[in-house]
């Protein structure tokens, strides 16, 4: 083991983990406000395909990321409209959003498959992903607005009684989650593996969802969890390439197993559940009750 090798591994881990951080932190904010959006994978794919198409058409990286985030806002806005105003079931709507996103991205991207593009250096986004985690953390625990957002997620009726607009706050949280997911998607199709392929996020949206639970709804732990998940994958690749005997299959399921273990741990004690999960998660808010 020499320094170059270790630095190289570190680089690959950073590049591979960044989309998990973006999607995870976005979903965390959404869930903190009391809404569970299972549409992460779908929003990531639509974000990835929009960024790719815009880049091919305009050649501008800025426009690609900008409009991709806009697509995330539209997708999550649709979700927000359904669950906040039409009171549809969050779980069913989120799943539908993922299925819709998979189909929509395939349809939009059909003629762009195999179009070569020049990838963008990932380092700006890697740094930005750290920054955004600390900003979210600061927002949650050091600002009044963050406190209100958390209050809405814990007890929307109390927050409503105090005069805060539950719907508006949840809407903004969902939109933030959507734009982060789209950013994660566009990072994948433009920096990480510069191409468009149907379903190219390959389940990272689900890992991001698992990550939020794994992190027990704490921003810094999303970052730590993402790097554990991402690091383990890259580490086992390195061990394989060094010729060590290693069960690669095990590491493909490791994130999910870890999440189940965390779920079991936090649900083994009622107090722990109260301390971790936002109390109003998935519960719809009816004004005037």
């Amino acid at each position, binding site marked *: 083991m020499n320094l170059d090798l270790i630095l190289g591994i570190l680089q*690959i881990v950073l*590049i591979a983990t960044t989309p998990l951080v973006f999607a995870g932190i976005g979903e965390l904010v959404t869930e903190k406000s009391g809404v569970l959006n299972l549409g992460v994978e779908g929003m990531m794919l639509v974000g990835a395909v929009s960024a790719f198409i815009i880049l091919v058409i305009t050649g501008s990286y800025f426009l690609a990321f900008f409009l991709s985030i806009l697509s995330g806002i539209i997708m999550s806005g649709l979700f927000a409209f359904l669950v906040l105003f039409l009171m549809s079931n969050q779980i069913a709507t989120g799943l539908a959003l993922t299925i819709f996103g998979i189909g929509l991205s395939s349809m939009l991207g059909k003629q762009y498959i195999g179009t070569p593009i020049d990838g963008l250096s990932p380092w700006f986004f890697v740094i930005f992903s750290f920054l955004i985690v600390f900003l979210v953390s600061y927002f949650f625990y050091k600002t009044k607005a963050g406190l209100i957002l958390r209050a809405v997620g814990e007890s929307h009726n109390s927050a409503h009684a105090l005069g805060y607009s539950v719907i508006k706050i949840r809407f903004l949280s969902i939109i933030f989650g959507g734009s982060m997911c789209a950013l994660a998607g566009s990072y994948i199709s433009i920096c990480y*593996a510069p191409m468009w*392929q149907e379903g190219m996020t390959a389940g990272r949206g689900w890992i991001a969802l698992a990550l939020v639970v794994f992190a027990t709804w704490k921003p810094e732990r999303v970052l730590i969890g993402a790097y554990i998940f991402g690091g383990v994958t890259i580490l086992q690749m390195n061990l394989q390439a060094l010729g060590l005997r290693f069960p690669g299959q095990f590491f493909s399921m490791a994130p999910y197993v870890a999440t189940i273990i965390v779920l079991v741990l936090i649900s083994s004690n009622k107090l722990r559940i109260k301390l971790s999960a936002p109390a109003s998660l998935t519960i719809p808010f009816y004004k005037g009750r």
Partner: protein
Amino acid sequence: MIRIITFLSTFLVFAFGSAYADPKKVGFIYIGPPGDHGWTYMHDVGRKYMESQLGDSITTTYLENIPENADAVRAIRKLADSGHDLIFTTSFNYMDQTHEVAKDFPDIKFEHATGYIQADNVATYSARFYEGRMIEGHIAGHMTETNTIGYIASFPIPEVVRGINAFYLAASKVNPDIKMKIIWVFTWYDPGKEADAANTLINQGADIIVQHTDTYAPCQAAQKAGVYAFGQASNQEEFCPDAHLTSIEDIWGPYYAERAKAVVDGTWSSGDTWDGMDKGMVVMSPYNTKLMPASLIQEAVNMEVGIKDGTIHPFTGPIYNQAGELVVPEGEVAPDGMLLGMNFYVQGIDGEVPQ
């Protein structure tokens, strides 16, 4: 009377007209999207070739992104239920699912790609990709400077293991110091993970990347890092022109056309087809003249000729397994049975095949 004639003529037109015009329905189950520019893409190219050859006598359908689990049963059954006459299931791990559905539909013909179990209405077919792997290995043995080859493998099935062995045997013949670094990614299709694996191998000193997964992400990663790569399944030169040495192309079209024609003519029978370069089922993409010396290209072309006329076989003895046991004696070639079930590395490759 007129009414009877009208009735009769309508009946006749219906009966015979439909017998003539009724095209046979051919269905495909794809593991990925046809746009992967790899495995599924080439099956889709084959499907289109078949359509162009048989014209109006067939119609084709495909279902894409079908996972290799119980979902595949549903997908295959859906094609069977909707009146398809011939169904191609184009991935190894559709094996049990294909047979499960085939049992319930004895009149429908099934063709399972890269499988090894046949039934009265299930034929199997595959291409001898390992012939191409041999040529890639030979080229890699000459081109590598670090004597380290990075190999991205998908799932530990005989098809993939055979490719690794064929590659290594040829590479170590021209360059006995060669080392193979193998990463099993346990997916056919995940551009991000494939790129991670390629970068990991390059980081560990590999200067040639070989892949047995479906997207061109590894080739792109090689291009970025300034090392060489072999593409997979289709010609991937346009995505990584400064890295791409050649690709093994899977040419399914003529086989598909032949089998569909047999169904149209009513002469289809089950069997096992395993064709290689001699029948044009395996083709090498144009060798990269910018990167490879002319003499090496000539050697590769000569090898193609030798493989086609049978004078060269990638698994010619003596071949030893990792334990040092002689598995193919000197002067003999490995029998197809051994190749089809190959689940061991040959001597010289480190590590072991994941179980």
